[in-house]
């Protein structure tokens, strides 16, 4: 029997399309699909954000995402999991990260999506630079894994 692929991980410089990523996690045995999309806001602490720029230590980021998906599967009973993160320039209003999870019952996928985005923001080596109309700065996630 062919192994059915259940985890989908991608770091990409292309725009993210939610429908495509949701289609990856569809499963006739799933009663629920939950998703989270992170999008670029037009303001940060009263500054006007023009765009974001993401960079990553790509092979390690893929490895860390794979590792947190292994962890999330020990916490909740899930069908398929997709974690996609865009890199490079992300204009205001566009999507930088999409997480999609299918499960038999709804609470599993809802809890898993929340845990995955929280943990991605703590552990995965991806960095965001905010470009303002008058400068730029590297961001730091509040609970990012640190020294």
């Amino acid at each position: 029997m062919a192994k059915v692929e259940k985890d989908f991980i991608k770091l990409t410089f292309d725009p993210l399309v939610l429908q495509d990523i949701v289609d990856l996690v569809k499963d006739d045995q799933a009663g629920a699909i939950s998703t989270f999309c992170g999008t670029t806001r037009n303001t940060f602490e009263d500054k006007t954000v023009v765009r974001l720029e993401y960079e990553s230590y790509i092979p390690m980021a893929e490895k860390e995402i794979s590792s947190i998906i292994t962890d999330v599967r020990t916490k909740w009973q899930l069908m398929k999991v997709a974690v996609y993160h865009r890199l490079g320039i992300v204009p205001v209003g566009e999507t930088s990260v999409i997480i999609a999870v299918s499960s038999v019952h709804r609470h599993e996928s809802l809890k898993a999506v929340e845990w995955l985005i929280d943990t991605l923001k703590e552990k995965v080596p991806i960095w965001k630079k905010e470009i303002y109309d008058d400068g730029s700065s590297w961001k730091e996630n509040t609970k990012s894994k640190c020294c």
Partner: protein
Amino acid sequence: MSKEFTILYFASARDAVNISSEIISFPSTSSSLSLQDLTNLLKNRHENLGKVLENSMFAINMQYVDKDDESIMVKPGDEVAIIPPVSGG
């Protein structure tokens, strides 16, 4: 066997040193470096890097390491990354 290791700089670390990676030879008498030795070596090479290092993690061969673990050694051929606080999502 090459007595060198690779070091990768990301985000604010790259901005501080103006390069994204370099290959560094071990000091002539040794073929491994503790994380404390590594920190000192990097501070000597790049005067702007000290502050960034204080807030950064190290990863060796794509694995986060505990900076305070004195048993961890950088060895020839290792890929060491400076990981400033992450901000994905």
